């Protein structure tokens, strides 16, 4: 990738190189945030030191304002930082929902006090956030949420329950969509920040078909929330939520999502097939039918990969965002799920293990991955919702008469 910086940027580059040499623990080389963050706070002392170092410079959130604990870098400088980190196998230990979604949203919609209070701890990875959006009765139709928020004069009183709150059991704070007006649907929603240590907050982890998960149910019973924790205007929560979800989607798209370890860009399906399925005299997978289906899948995966590249290139050009971006989540989910199914088929009886003897780690991971992967077409905007978005926003097809649209 071309670097368009001038002398100043080169000076910065040299500075970054030196800093990394001094502060990035070599033992962490080539790792990732996911490795250390799937659960409670990391205990590894190298990671803790690395977090502290990045927190001090604010380079974990490079383009956030310096005054709020961010790196205060320009886009070019941020790119240089990324390049240099990449070059030495360094990775960003400052992450989570605070960084990906909530922080950027608060920077746009929060008042000064809220920004001063909440942004610096995010920049230093000292506070973890969870998302209180979905409810048992409000999934795809999120705006029908019911968690009630009443004005008690000097505080808010919150009652209700949230579901799919990822990481709630370890979170310090929750950004939450609550109902402040029952007479209006979208305009009756507000955006509230809730301290998870408040009395009345209860968290229950949810076990999935794939086993343990970071997802939780979160219950609010007469939880008192300070008035100043309302972000944006009363009844303005839906707009803020939409913006936040945009940040979420941009974040997912950038990293290719978390769709399965080994994902779409890992070794092609057929290599696994050759390990588990007999080959004929010509060295080809002996099962015709399986081979055709693996080929069909690999063609889809390749087409998807080429489309990811194409949409990136097109979006960067003057033509504006590519029409291809709208299909990515659905296509990506479907292909990942197909791969998981084919993997199980290829593994045969070795693809039926839950745990223990007789199965290696990869085989067990394949089963868990297959199960967990069923979620790709459900969360973050289900496949049906994605189809609705494509139909209505891209293709311009209308809503049925008499329907409530938004």
């Amino acid at each position, binding site marked *: 990738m071309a670097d368009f910086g001038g002398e100043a940027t080169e000076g910065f580059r040299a500075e970054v190189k030196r800093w990394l040499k001094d502060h990035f623990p070599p033992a962490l080389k080539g790792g990732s945030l996911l490795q250390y963050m799937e659960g409670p706070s990391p205990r590894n002392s190298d990671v803790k030191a690395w977090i502290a170092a990045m927190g001090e410079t604010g380079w974990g959130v490079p383009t956030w304002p310096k005054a709020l604990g961010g790196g205060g870098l320009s886009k070019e400088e941020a790119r240089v930082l990324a390049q240099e980190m990449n070059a030495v196998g360094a990775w960003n230990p400052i992450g989570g929902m605070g960084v990906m979604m909530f922080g950027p949203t608060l920077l746009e919609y929060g008042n000064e006090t809220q920004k001063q209070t909440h942004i610096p701890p995010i920049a230093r990875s000292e506070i973890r956030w969870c998302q209180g959006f979905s409810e048992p009765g409000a999934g795809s139709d999120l705006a029908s949420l019911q968690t009630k928020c009443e004005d008690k004069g000097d505080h808010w009183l919150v009652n209700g329950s949230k579901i799919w709150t990822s990481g709630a059991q370890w979170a310090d704070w929750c950004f939450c969509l609550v109902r402040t007006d029952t007479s209006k649907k979208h305009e009756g929603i507000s955006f509230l920040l809730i301290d998870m240590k408040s009395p009345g907050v209860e968290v229950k982890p949810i076990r999935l078909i794939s086993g343990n998960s970071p997802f939780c149910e979160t219950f609010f019973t007469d939880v008192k929330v300070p008035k100043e924790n309302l972000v944006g205007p009363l009844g303005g929560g839906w707009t803020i939520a939409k913006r936040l979800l945009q940040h979420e989607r941009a974040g997912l798209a950038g990293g290719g999502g978390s769709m399965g370890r080994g994902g779409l860009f890992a070794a*092609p399906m*057929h290599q696994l*097939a*050759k390990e588990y399925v007999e080959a004929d005299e010509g*060295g*080809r*997978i002996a099962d015709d039918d399986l*081979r*055709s289906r*693996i*080929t*069909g899948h*690999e*063609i*889809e995966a*390749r*087409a*998807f990969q*080429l*489309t990811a*590249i*194409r949409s990136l*290139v*097109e979006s960067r*050009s003057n*033509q504006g965002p590519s*029409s*291809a971006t709208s*299909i990515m989540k*659905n*296509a990506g989910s479907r292909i990942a799920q197909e791969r998981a199914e084919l993997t199980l088929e290829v593994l045969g009886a070795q693809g039926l293990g839950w745990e223990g003897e007789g199965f290696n780690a990869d085989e067990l991971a394949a089963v868990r991955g297959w199960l967990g992967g069923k979620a790709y077409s459900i969360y973050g905007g289900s496949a*049906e919702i*994605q*189809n*609705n978005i*494509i*139909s*209505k926003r*891209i*293709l*311009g*097809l*209308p*809503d*049925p*008469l008499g329907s409530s649209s938004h």
Partner: protein
Amino acid sequence: MAVLTEEQSLLRDAARTWTQEKSPVSAFRKVRNSGVALGYDQAAFAEMAEMGWTGVIIPEEYGGSDFGWLSLGLILEETGRTLTASPILSSSVAAGAIVLAGTDAQKQHWLTKLASGEVVGALAVDEGPHHNPAKVALKAEKAGAGWKLTGKKTFVLEGPAAGLLVVSAKTDGGVSLFLVPGDAKGVAKHALKLADSRGAANIDFDGVEVGADALLGEEGKGGPLLDKILDRARAALAAEMLGSALQAFETTLDYLKTRVQFGQVIGSFQALQHRAAKMFTDLELSRSCVEAALTAIDNDGAEVSELVSLAKAKMGDTLHLVSNEMVQMHGGIGMTDEHDAGLYLKRARAQETAFGGQAFHRDRYARLQGF
């Protein structure tokens, strides 16, 4: 859509304007109804040649513009949209064969005429109902300094119009390619009346004598060369298929937005919306493959064959779906000959079959990947 250079954008815009204004689907319908064996309108083809479309992959010294295969693909996407009947694809492929492996003399003799549209070129490779280029029975025997060709070729696209036939034959050393004039003695063309009304012919070669200068490339080493030529044909055809599929989809989408039943526009029914979303998704995925294949050809990349089979297979499946959905979603009127849906459906099956169908290319993709 790939990010185009300004040159390419202009070419595409010109192609779009011309096909929409001068060669809409009704023009093809006229060609069809005229029943002419050629299968295209010669006046329209002359205009295309004048605009330089016949020379897009031919070097400038022979009167071409040498814009490359992606550029040809841009034009074919537009002609595909309106089902424009023309031998541009076929001629370009024949010209491409000579550009790849022709001697200077062969280039001098043929390329200028192909670039100007004076001669139409065609690939004569198939010998049965299924594309299987490795299997060649037509023989070429040494006859003095030259060769004598005996055998049959089937379903030669643009066969009736072809003044140049690029023929695959079996020689002692293996497979060889020959440049045979369409009117050579012993060449007997039998025009076919196909469902898609395009020009094609079965061609008999009854002891056709050609000179030594008719051999294209090396004797017995024609296999890899033929593969390269066919890959260009497949990629170009995939671009035309993309255009047809896109227009079929857009016409159907318009219908969904205008047809009223049960008091509302049928496009408001979610079941139809989701089917439309699926087609849209498949079209975007297909476009990526087609553009990657054409670009790889222009860049002479290592993965050309893989990307070409990828594109032909994926595009074929998408076109198959969209062409069927066009009829189904239009309901009864989609079944009438008056409506365009039947034209897209028939053309689609012919395009899927030419130069190897989806099954052929899935198999080839797997082989190239080593499984």
